[in-house]
């Protein structure tokens, strides 16, 4: 009995360490960013200036950039992720399913800097040539596509992020889809539904899981730093179209940190950005959980 107690006390150390780390991270974000909130107040969030020589910082452009790129990423990735999950379960033999799932897992574990390198030198030029220029030429009258695109911009970042987050939401959807009671599918087929109609019923049944996958992907996309910093253009102005070069909060941090110590308030400003990024992520997660619960209880 005694050694039981000792073992518990020993193991107890480790959860406590994880509490300390989490608390420490949040504390260091608040503590280090405090000066910028004192100095700029709300202007830090609602203005878009980045003027280190004048010690004037407002990161609205980066917040907008984060929302645009991650929104675009999730918008593109969600239909693709659902298709990938459904395809691997419904449309291919079991053997091939394992292969597809392995490939999807591999995509999730590739280092982001590899996505960034490929994105910058292979993907961005292709996207520029075959998607962005035609869109600008024919649909340039729509404000979204009004800027003449260069290869690296918010649109490139959002699209690359979409590729990166597909496996995350796809695996959540896949697991939920596989857990749907077989009876539902059999019932659907037995009343003469086509395969597509059955798939519609099945995906309707796992709406909340799909939503959870979207939230997970959104969190990933908002926090992603390296790949985005390589293809987003790194320009501190408020974007007017998807084809504008811009910043996201995390790419701003990555890109500006090397010179931050030369200025009085830049370190604080970048930590402030990180703190806001954390808060946005937290809000989306909490909101997402709420919505998922609502969907589940309505059923």
């Amino acid at each position: 009995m005694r050694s039981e107690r000792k073992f518990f006390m020993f193991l107890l150390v480790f959860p406590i360490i994880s509490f300390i780390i989490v608390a420490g991270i949040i504390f260091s974000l608040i503590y280090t960013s405090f000066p910028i909130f004192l100095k700029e107040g709300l202007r830090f969030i609602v203005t878009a200036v980045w003027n280190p020589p004048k010690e004037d910082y407002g990161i609205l452009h980066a917040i907008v950039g984060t929302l645009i790129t991650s929104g675009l990423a999730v918008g593109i990735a969600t239909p693709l992720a659902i298709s990938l999950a459904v395809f691997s379960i419904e449309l291919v033999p079991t053997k091939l399913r394992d292969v597809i799932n392995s490939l999807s897992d591999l995509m999730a574990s590739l280092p982001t800097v590899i996505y960034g390198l490929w994105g910058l030198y292979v993907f961005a030029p292709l996207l520029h040539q075959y998607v962005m220029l035609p869109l600008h030429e024919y649909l340039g009258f729509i404000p979204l596509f009004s800027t003449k695109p260069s290869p690296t911009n918010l649109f490139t970042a959002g699209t690359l992020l979409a590729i990166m987050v597909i496996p995350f939401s796809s695996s959540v959807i896949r697991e939920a889809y596989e857990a749907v009671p077989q009876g539902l599918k059999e019932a659907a087929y037995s009343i003469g539904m086509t395969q597509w109609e059955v798939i519609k019923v099945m995906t309707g049944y796992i709406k909340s899981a799909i939503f959870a996958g979207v939230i997970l992907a959104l969190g990933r996309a908002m926090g992603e730093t390296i790949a985005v910093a390589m293809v987003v253009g790194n320009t501190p102005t408020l974007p007017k179209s998807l084809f504008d070069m811009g910043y996201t909060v995390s790419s701003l941090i990555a890109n500006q940190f090397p010179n931050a110590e030369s200025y009085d308030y830049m370190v604080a400003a970048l930590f402030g950005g990180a703190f806001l990024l954390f808060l946005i992520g937290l809000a989306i997660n909490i909101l997402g959980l709420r919505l998922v619960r609502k969907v589940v209880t309505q059923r």
Partner: protein
Amino acid sequence: MIARKVKNKIMIGLIGLLAIVSAAPLFAIIASIYVNGARIISPRFLVDFPPPPLGGSDGGIGPALVGTLILMALSILIGGGLGLFTGIFLSEYGHHILSHYTRLSLQIMVEFPTVIIGLFAYAVLVLPLRSFNAFAGAFALAIVIIPYVALQVREAYASIPYSLKEAAYSLGVSPFVVNLRILLSVARRGVATALLVGLARAAGETAPLLFTILGTTLSYFEGLDKPIGAVPLLIYNFALSPYERWHEVAWGAAAVLLTIILALFIVTRSLVKEVKL
């Protein structure tokens, strides 16, 4: 009726097409990394110093590669250890009130953008020491991998049959022996998988290293309190440089990194497969 059948065909085709579109980038990425990397890779590439931006020989990524190996070893030692015991706690005391909060904090740790973890390591280990250092990088990487290792170890321990746990406890030895010798050896594949996943993360993460190790490429390891290089950071810096030659080095380094990741991935897969049998 025919309209429905036609629609069915079209939509099924569309799903197939979208699935292929979403998996295609993987092949494109692997192919372009190896095709572009092959131009510069040779045995010397693994040990040489990077070339000057203009002129000189091809060079290599020796210091960065050694740096990455050191960072991997250190971070798996710290993060793997902490994650392992946290996972055992979660499995052994799953109903304890602290387990609930531990799972919550691990969840938050997974959700932290890794760049924030890098900032944290900068605040606690770089600013006070007034120097970029290898340990800060390993510390940041360790934080990144703790939740992955902990949650997977928990699963590995939770999957041990209850009767086996009872039998182990009935031997009358201390819980230390039961959990850390007997059950650990039963769950060894699951635990090994957890550690390999952590190792792969440590090898490929870049953002936590940006503000911690400085990424020196011009000298080999000089001590934990000194700056150090790392392959992912070298790729990032060289790819964004204006020099054609450094881009080539970045591709070569990416091929090396991809090989490390693929190797770890394949070993992990084979472990998982054997567990299923």
